[in-house]
């Protein structure tokens, strides 16, 4: 699998002198990255709300603020998320936070967002269908919290493309649970793939999300199979198809585990770990629990697993196949 080359220069010297030198040497590049990022932001939200001039050229005003702040301000690399590279100059939220403070940033964005996000569809226009009781509403809220936590975990432990595939694959289910009309349009990411590729990626995303949601992803220290599985499929990975995971050869190098000495061993243990995880998730779905939260998780399980899950991971296992075929079909209105 091809590795992405790093698009951003590293910032190696964070002293005031080092930062000023960086701007002297790479000022055009830095300003261009800031300009591109602020321009995109300003197409949706007024920079004037953050104190930049509304007349004249607020984008240039914002760019020069960021450059001055970097050159003169108290910026500690340890407090910055992400790699210490020029990518920092593409992160508008960071610079607007430097301008007004992160608390004020959120307040301003809340105020601006009431005017409407470009992609916003007001959830209140379609009130939830079956939540006329406080208890049901509480279950839904709890489920939202769980899904949100898991989605953040999926991003941290894989990559952004998989989050997109999960959002698309689960849209019917979420629309039904939360009571809105799903758009039903094919996402751009999905359009770039053949139908078969899309289906494989979506099943991959659904399975990894489900495993995280059920909290069945093993601790890496349990066994070689757990270590290989986690290091490959539940670790932040390059946003690169087709596998969206860490290469077996890289896993073997990183783990320095005598049992996982090469790519072949890593691949074998990874598949073993996958089978165990799939078995656990199937077990949870098969042992259906009728408590309200569990019912929602159960239905999530039904839409998340299928024979395509096995195809996505090239697993040939008659027992797993039989169990997947035996699962009840999800309700028609949320079936994919």
């Amino acid at each position: 699998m091809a590795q992405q080359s790093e698009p951003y220069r590293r910032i190696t010297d964070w002293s005031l002198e080092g930062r000023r030198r960086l701007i002297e040497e790479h000022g055009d590049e830095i300003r261009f990255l800031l300009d591109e990022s602020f321009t995109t932001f300003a197409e949706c939200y007024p920079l004037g709300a953050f104190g930049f001039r509304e007349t004249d050229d607020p984008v240039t005003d914002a760019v020069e603020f960021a450059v001055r702040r970097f050159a003169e301000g108290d910026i500690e690399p340890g407090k910055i998320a992400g790699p210490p590279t020029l990518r920092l100059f593409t992160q508008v939220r960071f610079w607007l936070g430097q301008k007004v403070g992160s608390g004020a940033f959120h307040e301003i964005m809340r105020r601006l967002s009431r005017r409407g996000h470009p992609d916003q569809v007001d959830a209140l226009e379609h009130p939830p269908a079956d939540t006329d009781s406080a208890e049901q509403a509480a279950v839904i809220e709890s489920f939202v919290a769980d899904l949100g936590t898991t989605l953040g975990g999926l991003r941290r432990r894989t990559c952004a493309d998989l989050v997109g595939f999960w959002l698309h694959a689960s849209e019917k289910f979420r629309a039904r649970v939360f009571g809105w009309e799903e758009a039903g349009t094919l996402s751009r990411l999905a359009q770039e793939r053949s139908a078969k590729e899309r289906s494989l990626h979506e099943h991959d995303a659904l399975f990894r999300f489900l495993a995280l949601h059920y909290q069945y992803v093993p601790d890496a220290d349990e066994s070689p199979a757990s270590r290989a599985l986690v290091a490959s499929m539940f670790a932040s990975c390059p946003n690169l198809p087709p596998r969206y995971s860490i290469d077996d050869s890289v896993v073997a190098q990183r783990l320095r585990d005598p049992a996982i000495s090469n790519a072949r061993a890593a691949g074998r243990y990874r598949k073993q770990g996958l089978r165990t995880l799939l078995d656990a998730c199937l077990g949870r779905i098969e042992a259906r629990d009728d408590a309200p939260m569990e019912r929602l998780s159960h239905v999530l399980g039904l839409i998340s697993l299928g024979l395509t899950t096995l195809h996505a991971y090239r697993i040939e296992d008659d027992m797993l196949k039989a169990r997947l075929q035996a699962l009840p079909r999800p309700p028609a209105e949320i079936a994919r």
Partner: protein
Amino acid sequence: MSSRIPDLATLDDMILGDIEHDDPRHAEEAWQALVRTPGGVEAWEKALARRKRIDRIAALTRAHPWLAGVMLVLRRAGRRMKRAPLFAPTAVYPPVPALDAILDQTDDVARPHVQLAWGRIVELAVPMGEVVALEYPIDVEATIYYQSAQGEGRMRPGHHWRMEAGEAPVLLVLTIGGGGAGDLSAALSRAEACAGVVLVVAEP
């Protein structure tokens, strides 16, 4: 209970995987909003496309720093535009033969193309050896400039650009009202409108 899709800047930090580090409380709200609100799929996809685009451009400007400088000048010139022209030029390959274009006898085969945006720079991946044209209404007086690591200049009217080995990236800029300036910098300082396209080599 209402919820709103996270804003563009927050979505970008979610895509980058940075949001929990900076702001754990708002991170929780943002992920929940993405899950429960209609429009989340499209919002995420658009944010992802924006992030991938700026990463691509960053890689280009890192490898070719001269590109950053001229693109910055074009962006600032674009913001000085009082009004964008009503048409948008198109970068396309291969070009339609001139007579066919005049007689409106273009064939129906879709040619790879990208529409330029006034005051902005777009990208177009072109296979080696292909000829690229910037198409715009025949009655418009425009000047096209080129710039690459090898040099810069003004293209002769009707001239097209052939992608040759070792040249990419190549910046083509269409200006209106530049007064026929000899070089791109002078043209951008005087142009009433400008739009650019960066040509990169398409992967086989």
